[in-house]
C-alpha cells in the first residue's frame, strides 16, 4: 500500500486550496537575531490585527481547506490572546504549531496551551553552548531558558521539535548541537542554514558558511544519521543547506500561491513570509476575504502558472520542477523579481551567487559586526 495521493483541486481550475496558513501574530520580539526573516522596516508596521480579526482569518482559512496552522512572529508569546487563538484554531480542526524562541514561555503556559489544544511547540536555538547562543540572540539569559522550556515541552506530552539556525559562526558545532538534542530527547531537529532574506540578506557576508565549512558539516550530519539509525533512534534530522551552493534553485513554497498563505501582523496576506519585500501590492485581510485574496487577488495570481517567465526559464524543460526558483531571491539579487533565481547556473546573473561563495571563503567579520534585528536598526533602514 502506498499512502500518498495527488494534490486536490480547489475552487478554481488549476488552483488548489491553501493547505498551510502561517499566522505571524506580531513583529515584536525580545531577541535580536541578525538572520531574522522579518522585514527590515518591521518597526514601521501598522496596528496588529485584533483577536476578532485573527479569529475571522482562522475560520475563513479552515473553510477553504487549510489544515496546518503556524503561529509565529516575531515572538508570538507576546500576544496575550495566544491561548484564545490556540483554542479557536484547535476547535476548528487545525493542526496547530507554535514557533517560538522560548523567551516568555513558562511551564504553566506550556501546560495551558496543551489544554487549549496546541499540537506542537518548536523551540529555536542559536547555538549549542550558552556563550555563542546568547551572543547571537543578543540576550544574556536566553540559553538556559530555552533548555528549560525544551524539557517542559516534552514533559507536557508534545513532540519535541528543536530548530537551530545555522551560519558560519556555529556550523562547526554541528556534532555538539545534535548530541545536545539527543540528550534532550528531541523527536525532530531542524538544522536550518540561513536563507538570505530580511536581516539575513543584510548580514549575508557575515553569516554565509564557506563551502569547506558546509562539507564538513554535511559529513558530520551524515555520520550522526547513521549512528542514530543503528541505535534505532527515531530522532529525525532535517538539514537545510543553503541554496547558494546549489546549481538549481529550490521549488520555492512549492510554487507561488499553491499551498502557503502567510498573514502578517498588520493583516497583509502574502504567498510567503518574505514576499513583502517585492514591489507587488498584496491584499489585506482587513479589506478582503481570504477566499478572494487567494483565488482572485492580483498579488496572489502574479506568479501563478508560467506565462510570466522570461528566458531562460520560459523555454526551460525544468520549469515545472522549480518554477524558476524564488521570486524574492531574484529580486534581491537582480533587481527584477521576474528573473530566474540566480542560484540557477543557467541564469545570466549566476555570477552574483559565485561572488557570494567566493566572499564566504574569505570572510573575516566577527559576530559583533553584524547588524542586529532591533527597533533602532529597523528605523535606520526605514529612513535609509
Amino acid at each position, binding site marked *: *500500500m*502506498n*499512502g*500518498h*495521493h495527488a*494534490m*486536490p483541486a*480547489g475552487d478554481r481550475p488549476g488552483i488548489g*486550496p491553501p*493547505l498551510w496558513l502561517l499566522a505571524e501574530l506580531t513583529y515584536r520580539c525580545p531577541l535580536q537575531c541578525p538572520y531574522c526573516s522579518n522585514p527590515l522596516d518591521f518597526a514601521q508596521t501598522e496596528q496588529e490585527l485584533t483577536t476578532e480579526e485573527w479569529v475571522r482569518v482562522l475560520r475563513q482559512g479552515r473553510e*477553504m*481547506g487549510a*489544515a*496546518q496552522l*503556524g503561529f509565529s512572529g516575531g515572538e508570538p508569546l507576546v500576544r496575550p490572546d495566544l491561548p484564545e487563538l490556540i483554542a479557536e484554531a484547535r476547535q476548528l*480542526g487545525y*493542526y496547530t*504549531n507554535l514557533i517560538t524562541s522560548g523567551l516568555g514561555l513558562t511551564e504553566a503556559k506550556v501546560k495551558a496551551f496543551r489544554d487549549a489544544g496546541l*499540537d*506542537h511547540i*518548536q523551540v529555536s536555538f542559536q547555538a549549542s553552548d550558552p556563550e555563542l547562543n546568547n551572543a547571537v540572540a543578543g540576550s544574556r539569559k536566553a540559553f538556559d531558558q530555552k533548555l528549560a522550556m525544551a524539557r517542559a515541552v516534552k514533559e507536557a*506530552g*508534545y*513532540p519535541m*521539535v528543536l530548530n537551530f539556525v545555522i551560519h558560519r559562526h556555529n556550523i562547526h558545532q554541528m556534532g555538539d548541537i545534535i548530541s545536545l538534542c539527543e540528550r534532550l530527547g528531541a*523527536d*525532530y531537529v531542524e538544522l536550518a542554514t540561513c536563507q538570505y532574506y530580511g536581516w539575513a540578506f543584510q548580514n549575508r557576508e557575515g553569516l554565509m558558511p564557506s563551502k569547506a565549512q558546509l562539507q564538513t558539516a554535511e559529513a558530520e550530519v551524515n555520520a550522526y544519521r547513521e549512528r542514530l539509525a543503528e541505535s534505532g533512534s*527515531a530522532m*529525525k534530522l532535517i538539514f537545510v543547506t543553503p541554496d547558494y551552493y546549489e546549481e538549481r534553485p529550490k521549488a520555492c513554497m512549492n510554487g507561488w500561491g499553491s499551498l502557503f498563505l502567510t498573514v502578517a501582523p498588520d493583516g497583509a496576506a502574502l504567498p510567503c513570509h518574505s514576499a513583502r519585500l517585492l514591489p507587488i501590492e498584496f491584499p489585506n485581510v482587513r479589506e478582503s476575504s481570504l477566499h478572494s485574496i487567494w483565488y482572485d487577488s492580483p498579488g496572489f495570481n502574479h506568479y501563478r502558472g508560467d506565462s510570466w517567465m522570461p528566458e531562460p526559464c520560459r523555454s526551460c524543460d525544468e520549469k515545472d520542477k522549480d518554477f524558476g526558483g524564488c521570486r524574492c531571491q531574484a529580486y534581491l539579487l537582480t533587481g527584477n523579481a521576474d528573473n530566474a533565481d540566480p542560484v540557477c547556473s543557467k541564469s545570466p546573473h549566476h555570477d552574483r551567487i559565485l561572488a557570494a561563495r567566493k566572499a564566504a571563503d574569505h570572510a573575516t567579520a566577527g559576530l559583533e559586526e553584524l547588524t542586529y534585528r532591533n527597533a533602532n536598526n529597523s528605523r535606520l533602514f526605514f529612513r535609509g
Partner: protein
Amino acid sequence: MTLAMEQTPRLRPGFRFQWEPAQNAHVLLYPEGMVRLNDSAGAVLKEVDGQRTVADIVETLEQQFPEAGSLAEDVGDFLKDAEQQHWILFT
C-alpha cells in the same frame, strides 16, 4: 521483522489522523507536515486507537470489506511501513 497479531499500534505523540473534506481524504498531520492518505491507508489508520491489537483491526476491516478476503498480510505490511515512517508505535 514480523508483526505479531497481538501487538497494539498507536499513533506517535504529535500525530493526528483526521478527515479533510477539502482534500476528500483522510490525512495524517504532524509537526509542520501532512500526508494525504489513500483510501486503504485511511481505512487502516482509522482503526488505530492504541486500544485494539493488529488482530482486532484485521477482523474489523475484514467485516467492513468482506469482498476483499483475508487482509492480514496487507494490513500487516502497511502497519510495518507506517512504523518505519515513524507514524505509529507498537506496545
